[in-house]
């Protein structure tokens, strides 16, 4: 039976991916810094292996007997106390995983990137071969872009690596800092999230977790080495997002629309607060700037080449709401 290593198996995507692979009958090794992590799924086909992507020896150890790797581990937050953590985890960590995979003779690796490497869209949804037209003020996007360049170097050396680029992922999973949609939905259900940014017409692409997980597995199966595949969902405005949330949850709140300029001003205060006190910011200016843009993405390539399927947004939201209601 094929043995597979998953990094980031306690993360939002990696956790569900680990479970899906285990349910398909694969032997899955789950690389964890803490093998007692509460989000690590217990399953007869999942073997937790203690290790860290910043420790190449531990990756090499975990890779024993494996023929495939899913590298989903990343620093996917808005802010870290030590800004170098983004570079370390996302770039050095990725280099370590690929270096170790090369030495271990791994057949194929799927690297989880993000649609954030393209960032904002102009009029039409962005597709894989299109350029990024703004800079990289957001640390997460910057370091994921740098990590993709690292991946490309290994591909040029002959390694079989496929890149997948999920958009804004939502679904049934733990509410953590990297699960931004989950945080928003959970807050809405509890009556704590009452804000619609700007006029609410800004559009983003929302990908349902199970689609993204299936997309990963399809990329391992059919993805062309060195290619990137956007794994997205529907393009939805904030207004549509919250009206769907209202319809699917049955919970209605009076929402307040806060102008982008005011959010930007507030985020600048937050940055000053963070600089002085070291406390995590609630929002940062580079994210406030993003509220001026749409983030539409096209999954056409993945649909054509990988057989990627998109669950309707309303359906995905219904399941997410039910899940979050149960844990609330």
């Amino acid at each position, binding site marked *: 039976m094929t043995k597979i290593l998953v990094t980031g198996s306690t993360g939002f995507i990696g956790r569900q991916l680990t479970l899906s692979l285990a349910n398909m009958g694969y032997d899955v090794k789950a690389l964890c810094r803490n093998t007692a992590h509460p989000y690590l799924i217990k399953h007869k086909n999942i073997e937790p292996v203690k290790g860290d992507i910043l420790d190449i020896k531990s990756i090499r150890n975990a890779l024993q007997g494996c023929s495939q790797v899913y590298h989903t581990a990343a620093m996917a937050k808005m802010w870290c106390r030590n*800004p*170098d953590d983004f*570079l370390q985890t996302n*770039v*050095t960590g990725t*280099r370590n995983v690929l270096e170790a995979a090369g030495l271990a003779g791994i057949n194929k690796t799927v690297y989880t990137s993000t649609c954030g490497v393209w960032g904002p869209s*102009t*009029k*039409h949804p962005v597709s894989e*071969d*299109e*350029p990024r*037209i*703004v*800079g*990289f*003020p957001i*640390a997460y996007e*910057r370091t994921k*872009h*740098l990590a993709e*360049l*690292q991946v490309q*170097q290994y591909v040029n050396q002959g390694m079989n690596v496929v890149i997948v680029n999920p958009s804004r992922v939502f679904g049934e999973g733990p509410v953590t800092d990297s699960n931004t949609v989950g945080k928003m939905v959970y807050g809405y259900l509890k009556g704590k999230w009452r804000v619609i940014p700007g006029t609410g017409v800004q559009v983003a692409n929302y990908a349902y977790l199970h689609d993204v997980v299936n997309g990963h597995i399809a990329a391992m199966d059919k993805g062309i080495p060195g290619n990137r595949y956007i794994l997205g969902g529907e393009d939805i405005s904030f207004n549509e997002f919250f009206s769907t949330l209202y319809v699917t949850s049955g919970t209605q709140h009076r929402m307040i629309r806060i102008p982008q300029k005011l959010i930007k001003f507030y985020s600048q205060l937050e940055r000053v607060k963070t600089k002085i006190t070291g406390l995590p910011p609630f929002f940062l200016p580079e994210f406030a700037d993003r509220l001026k843009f749409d983030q539409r993405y096209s999954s056409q390539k993945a649909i054509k080449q990988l057989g990627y399927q998109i669950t309707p947004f309303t359906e995905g939201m219904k399941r997410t709401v039910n899940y979050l209601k149960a844990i609330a």
Partner: protein
Amino acid sequence: MIPKLTAIVTGASEGLGKSFAVELARRDIDLVLIALPGSSLEALATYIRKNFDVKVSSLEKDLTYSETYTDIFTFLKKQHITAHILINNAGLGNWSWFEDKSVSFYKKQIELNVITPVLLTRLFLDQANPAITSYLLNVGSLGGLFVVPKKQVYGATKSFIRYFTQCLQLELSDSNIKISLLSPGGINTKPELLVLNNRLRGISKATIFEAEDVAKIAIDGMLKGKKEIIPGVINRLMVVLNSILPGFVKNLIIKNRLKEILKSNDKIIDSVPAY
């Protein structure tokens, strides 16, 4: 009615040039984009055509070949395009001791940073329509004003651009052409800069800009006919200080900076991945 303008942008496939292209398209200005063969120029041109209502011609040409200059304008003539804006953006930077780069590198750098903008400007003025205001934007650098170690040739080429631009401003002050010099500080463009610039703190960080912000400020300034465009308050302050501080103080500051650079270099280079 404002006539539909056409702009030539050199070095348009990446970095600041790409941002110029997008910023001009956003303002409804048609484009003639020039970049090296094998760059991602065509992808950018396609993207702009799809998302904006402008005409885009893309020419993949090496600007260090002497036939390229006339080729560009022959192409425009054949297409019945008059260029109203020329942005001399293409350039080659370096951050190295003089002995560390080859003879061919410096030759290429001087050709691209000095000869190319001069000759393109000459040919651009030939075809400009005197009835419509034309614009020339030369991309210089704050480095053209300050003597910075490890920028010996680059800084010298940018000093050349400063003199050239200011002199043209005098010569052509009565004509229907507005000439601007853009003198940016650091810009986040190449991968290694993305890593290095984001390690800067405090005042140093305030001198660094995103390319799209520089492009916006530059085009605003160019259309207003500003003689010199310096993005950023700190950068402008540095220019003012430069003009009032006595020479020996400036020398002291630069020597101190050099010491810092030498000290921190080994530390930084160690942690930057190679691209």
